[in-house]
């Protein structure tokens, strides 16, 4: 449930579900997200321009020419939220090539974590991950939780250009850069698989909140010859 509501600037309501990251809190965020989405579709509330669910926050952006912080905050506080969670989640397998030319940050990780590359990969690949959210850039999945021995902070200065397909880790999370973009995660490989398809307007993201994800290693040759 929402613990605290704040303003983020003059055009967003910041709903705080707590500081912990776990599937229960995330499920609560997602319930609010679906509930408010339906009310927007049914035109029960006006002025909301975006809903951004994350691990334990829900940000509600609005149009200041139509509504304001106080109105949206009152609306959220007055919601009567049910407990039904949609469950149509799938399991997705993602190929990843971890050769050094794709795994850009192994030397940093080896130094910071004090374990060798093979061990990092072993711990990384031996896990089924949960998708908490998608975002930052189109279709980027935020996955968790990593084995405790391979958790590492973001880069001190984010890269200006992260190659498309880069597979990254930071703290207890893993992600995939679906497009070339700036970014600060530690990169351990690259996937040739299409994670976001803008031609598919209804379901453009391959991985969606609640899905399970498994990574498996491929060779450089398989990477270069990848065909979908």
């Amino acid at each position, binding site marked *: 449930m929402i613990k605290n509501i704040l303003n983020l*600037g003059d055009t967003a309501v910041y709903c705080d579900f707590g500081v912990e990251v776990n599937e229960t809190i995330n499920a609560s965020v997602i319930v609010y997200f679906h509930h408010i989405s339906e009310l927007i579709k049914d035109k029960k509330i006006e002025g909301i*321009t975006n809903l951004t669910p994350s691990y334990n926050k829900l940000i509600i*952006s609005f149009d200041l020419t139509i509504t304001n912080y106080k109105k949206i905050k009152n609306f959220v506080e007055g919601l009567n939220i049910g407990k039904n969670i949609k469950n149509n989640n799938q399991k997705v397998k993602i190929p990843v090539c971890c050769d050094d030319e794709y795994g850009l940050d192994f030397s940093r990780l080896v130094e910071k974590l004090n374990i060798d590359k093979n061990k990092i990969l072993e711990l990384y690949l031996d896990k089924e991950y949960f998708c908490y959210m998608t975002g930052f850039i*189109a*279709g*980027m999945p935020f996955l968790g939780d990593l084995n405790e021995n391979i958790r590492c902070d*973001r880069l001190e200065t984010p890269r200006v250009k992260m190659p498309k397909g880069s597979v990254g880790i930071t703290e207890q999370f893993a992600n995939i850069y679906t497009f070339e973009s700036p970014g600060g995660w530690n990169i351990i490989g690259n996937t040739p698989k299409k994670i976001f398809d803008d031609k598919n307007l209804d379901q453009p993201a391959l991985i969606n909140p609640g899905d399970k994800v498994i990574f498996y290693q491929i060779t450089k040759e398989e990477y270069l010859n990848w065909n979908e």
Partner: protein
Amino acid sequence: MNKAYFEVLRAGVNTTIQDKGRDHLYHIGIAASGAIDKRNYILCNKLVGNNLDEAVIEFAYQGPLLKLKNGRINVSITGDIIFNIIRKDSNVENGICYKNYILEDEDEIDLISTKNTAYGYLSISGGFELEKTWNSYSINTKANVGPNNGKKYSLKDKIFIKEPNLQTVKEKKIDYKEIPDNIIRVIKGTNFDYFSKEAQNSFFSQDFSVTKLVDRMGIRLSGNELENTVSTNIKSEGLVRGAIQVPADGNPIIMLSDHGTIGGYPKIGVVISADLDRVGQLTPGSVINFKEVSLEEAQNIFKSYADDTNRYLDECN
């Protein structure tokens, strides 16, 4: 009859189509995009009698050189722009912003450069012949979403025109005055207390310079490295236009129209809505200062900013 279009004779630095942007897609990671300077975008449409949400050409620094083919159109430029209209007979007219011009078949418009700002806008009566993606014409070059396969325009591209045969055109202009101001007003961010007292004070008192790392996603600043005493990472969460994130190196980054929808750096502040157009127009080397305002003040300032915009729109009738 042949279709009318602009032929791109010089692409310029970052020439795209923009409109008001696309909503309700942050949850899958798609930025709102849309014109960086919303006021100049709206005024540009008004000057050619369009609906205010019609698609326009947005250009940055050096703009495009465009040749009109198979048409007669009504065009307007907004921003702080040096441009020429090169007539078919090679006669060159110095362009004036905030008024409309007729372009005849084979005339060219040369958007030479912005002056002390980053972006300018070109509108034509009736708009361009494009398809919407997720209810918007805006091009997002980072996610390759929107017209032209989501890419900025290149040499020899054609930009097709919807209503190419205007007969009568009303003359319109706006007496637009932008007073330069390097003060950017900010509401404290949700992680303001992550920063040391010294960093909090210097954020609101010291100069920050705009670095060369500026694009439609955001603006990286340098000046005072802001010391974080709690954590240089937060659990990734949603962002908004104007949010000011501070990564571990202590240099703030302001989010603009194509910003990532989620971010994991602490947010020291959020630029108020009324100052977003001005922030988006900042160029590398500019020096700015942040000033704290309350939510209530921000709402009032926005109201008077919107009133000013409406006065310009009324003037144009």
